Every structure is written in structure tokens, then in C-alpha cells.
């Protein structure tokens, strides 16, 4: 700066503003990205093989008389037959549980959960955000990394994942974990809750994918590389 003043050279002699300079934020640490993709693969396998397992007895009632509720197209399922589907399920349940526990442990130990866990104070922010997303209402002023609706979705999905795991444990080991079956209304009902928890988890995915598409490549890439180029909230901060 001083040299420019000494020589009295005009603007033209200054170095060109480097066009290859960008701003970036490290949004998603490795633990989050790793567990995200591990979990995505596990959920896909568990849901598809689970539907095949359900097809062996597509009912929540008695065996006699058996009243089938649904005929699940084979194309949506994985494993080919009950035994094959169980193999997928019994293999990927470990990845699902492992990735879930690692995710929760990381969030809690790093303190990152404070940015994403839905708390009572977030309740008031849900409706304005819902109005913005679904009814083209005005965009509420954002003060945090995740808005109230995002927090609600992420938190509810993690709870559905925990419910899937716990009901799954009861279905897998109803004798060894009979104490866990009791609050679920018994072994028989646990199968229904396992199905409901899966539906809850899957309900998150379409909305999630739509938001990923709407937010563009840089946002998507950050779940792969961790780095997000020119994040929108940085512009906001420099204006502050």
C-alpha cells in the first residue's frame, strides 16, 4: 500500500484483483460426511430388504386367518427371497447402528448438536419457515446455520432412526431384550412400530433431496468434500 503512495502510480499499476480467489467454509467435518453416506447406503439396503422380509407375511395381525395388507412389487425389494433379504438386513443393520451411534457421539462431543438439535425455543420458527417453503410466504430472517424446520426434520429423523434400531433389537432378540419389548406394547406390536419408524425415516428423504437440488451443486459438494464455496451466510456476515 505504501509503495503505491510513494510512486504515485495510478490505479492501473496495482495488481489485478485475482479472479481465482474464492471464499470457502469447512461446513461438514469428516465424521458427519462419513456417517451421512454410510447411513444413506444402509437405509437404502435396510428399507429394500425390509420390504422383502415384510412380504413374507405382509400383515400385522394373526397368522390364522391371515389378512395380507399390501403386495409389495418385487422391484422395490432387495434380496430375492426371505432368506436373502434377511442376510442383507443382518449385515447392514451393523452399519446403520454403527453410523448412527458415531454420528450422535460426534455431535454431542463436538458440541455441534447445538446447531441442529430441535429445542423448545425453535417451535416459534417452524410456522414462518413452513409458510415460506410451502406457501411462498416471505423468507424469515436467518440467524443460525440451520432454520427451525431443518432442525425439526433432522431431529425427527434421528429419533426415527433410534426407534428403528430399538424396535429392530426387540424383533431380533425378543427373549434377551424382553424388557425393551414391554414399553413397545410387546413383541407383536414392535413389528408395527419398526415399520412406522421406517416410514418416518423415509418421509425425510424426498424433502431432503428436493432441498439439495434447490440449493445447488456447491451445497451438495460440501457433503462430499466438507468445503462449501461462497456460502450465502458469509455475504450476510460481511454486510453486518
Amino acid at each position: 500500500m505504501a509503495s503505491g503512495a510513494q510512486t504515485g502510480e495510478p490505479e492501473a499499476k496495482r495488481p489485478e484483483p485475482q479472479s481465482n480467489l474464492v471464499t470457502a467454509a469447512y461446513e461438514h467435518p469428516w465424521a458427519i460426511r462419513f456417517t451421512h453416506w454410510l447411513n444413506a447406503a444402509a437405509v437404502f439396503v435396510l428399507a429394500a430388504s425390509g420390504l422383502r422380509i415384510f412380504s413374507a407375511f405382509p400383515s400385522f395381525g394373526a397368522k390364522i386367518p391371515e389378512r395380507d395388507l399390501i403386495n409389495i412389487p418385487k422391484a422395490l425389494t432387495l434380496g430375492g427371497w426371505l432368506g436373502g433379504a434377511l442376510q442383507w438386513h443382518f449385515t447392514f443393520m451393523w452399519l446403520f447402528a454403527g453410523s448412527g451411534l458415531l454420528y450422535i457421539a460426534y455431535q454431542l462431543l463436538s458440541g455441534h448438536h447445538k446447531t441442529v438439535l430441535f429445542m423448545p425455543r425453535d417451535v416459534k420458527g417452524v410456522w414462518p419457515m413452513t409458510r415460506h417453503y410451502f406457501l411462498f410466504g416471505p423468507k424469515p430472517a436467518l440467524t443460525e446455520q440451520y432454520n427451525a424446520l431443518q432442525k425439526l426434520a433432522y431431529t425427527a429423523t434421528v429419533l426415527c432412526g433410534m426407534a428403528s434400531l430399538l424396535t429392530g433389537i426387540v424383533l431380533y432378540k425378543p427373549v434377551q431384550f424382553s424388557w425393551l419389548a414391554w414399553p413397545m406394547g410387546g413383541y407383536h406390536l414392535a413389528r408395527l412400530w419398526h415399520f412406522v419408524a421406517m416410514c418416518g425415516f423415509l418421509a425425510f428423504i424426498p424433502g431432503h433431496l428436493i432441498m439439495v437440488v434447490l440449493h445447488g451443486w456447491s451445497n451438495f459438494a460440501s457433503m462430499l468434500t466438507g468445503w462449501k464455496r461462497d456460502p450465502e451466510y458469509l455475504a450476510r456476515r460481511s454486510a453486518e
Partner: protein
Amino acid sequence: MCFTSSGDSRTVLASIEEKKLKRLSRRELLKLAPVVALGAFAVTRWQDPLLGRGVRLSDWASGLLFRRQHRAKTFSAADVVPFEKFPYNGYDDLDPGVDLENWTLTVAGNVRHPGEYTLAQIQALPKIRQNTRHVCVEGWDVIGSFGGARISDFLALVGADTSSRFVTVECADDYYESLDMATALHPQSLLCYEMYGKPLDRGHGAPLRLSLPTKLGYKSAKYLTKLSVTSVLGAERGYWEDQGYSWYAGL
């Protein structure tokens, strides 16, 4: 320039060279390589070995969880489904034509008294009656009433070496099964000759079947003809297991 944004722990780099960012990004992307390894499951010829390993891991963990003193829940008579609502479930023939008059159970393997045992000898052992849940791998379950002798009592009668690892059975309908010794010795594991207070009918496995409340239903073989005590399992571990079901199948 590097600073941390307020409110959370994100690192923010203002004015970083694009090339540098690409290098950083590539390095981070590579750290996800372990996830890509899951692609091995998409390779047809690796699928079976990998899934086999997954099932073996699950069976191993299931064995660790098993506790002899953990009893399967028993139910009052009011919770038992009526006899006609207890499914006849067989993989093939519901009546393999067992000669009930001349039936004997052949006992072999690591036992002091191998040979043929009659139903009367088994019925002379202390009789256990229990209302337990029969859980099918397909996803349905029924609470039924079962009566019979403890497998552990029968193993004592035949002088079995219970430090052996397995009990295997063969059946009149060519079904076959094998059990870990810990489950065979479980106090609720029965050589079952009665259901609902009556002798087993042909559809339920007359004259003798297994009733194992701590295992999935397919382990409870019917129409028993032979029981062996062994520490070595051959290629034939169980009819369904040999086609891909879990061998341990513990509840």
C-alpha cells in the same frame, strides 16, 4: 486469511485460491474412500461371501447375548391361541407317514448309551408344560401350549458329553437341524410330545418334535428320528440354514 465464524465451529477461509481449495477438497473427498468400499456389495461374486460374513457376525453376537437364565416369557392359558389357530407349518409334507407304533429315536455321537429310545422312555422323564411364543422367521408369532421332556434331562439319560458343541437332529420328512449346546441345555428347550395337552398330531410332528422358545420356529424340527451329540458340524447344518437362513436364529 482464516477465521472461525461465531456461534459454531466452522472454519471459514476468506480469499483462498481456487486451486488451493480444490486441493483441500480432493484430500477431504479421498477420506470418504471407506464408504466406496461398500460398492463391493454390488459385485455379484463378492455378494454371497460378504453377506455370509455379515450373518456370521450377527450369529456370533447373538451367541454372546444368550444367557441360560434368560427365560422366554410364559403365558397364561387365556393368552394361548386356540388349537385351530396354531398354524401347521411344514416345508414339505405334513404327514411323512411315521409308523407311530414302532417309532424309536436313534441316539448317537458323544453319548455313553447310544441306541434306540422309545417314546415311553422319554415320557418317563419329568414332564414340562409351558405356554410359550412360537416366532416364525416370516414375521408371525403364535402363543401355544407345549408339553414334553427337557432336552437337558434326556441328554443326562443318554449320558451325553455336554461339553460337546452341538446337538443335531434328523427327521422323518428329511428335514434336519443343529443346535448349539447352550440352547439345548436351556431349561425351556423341550423334546415335545404334546401340544394343548394332547399327543402331537401328525401335522405338528408326531410323535416327537423340538420346542425351542429361545429360537426361531424353523429350529424346532418335527418328526424326529435321530439325535446326535457332536462337536463337529458337517456341510449339512440345517435344512433352511443351508439355503441361507441364520444358523443361530436365537431370539
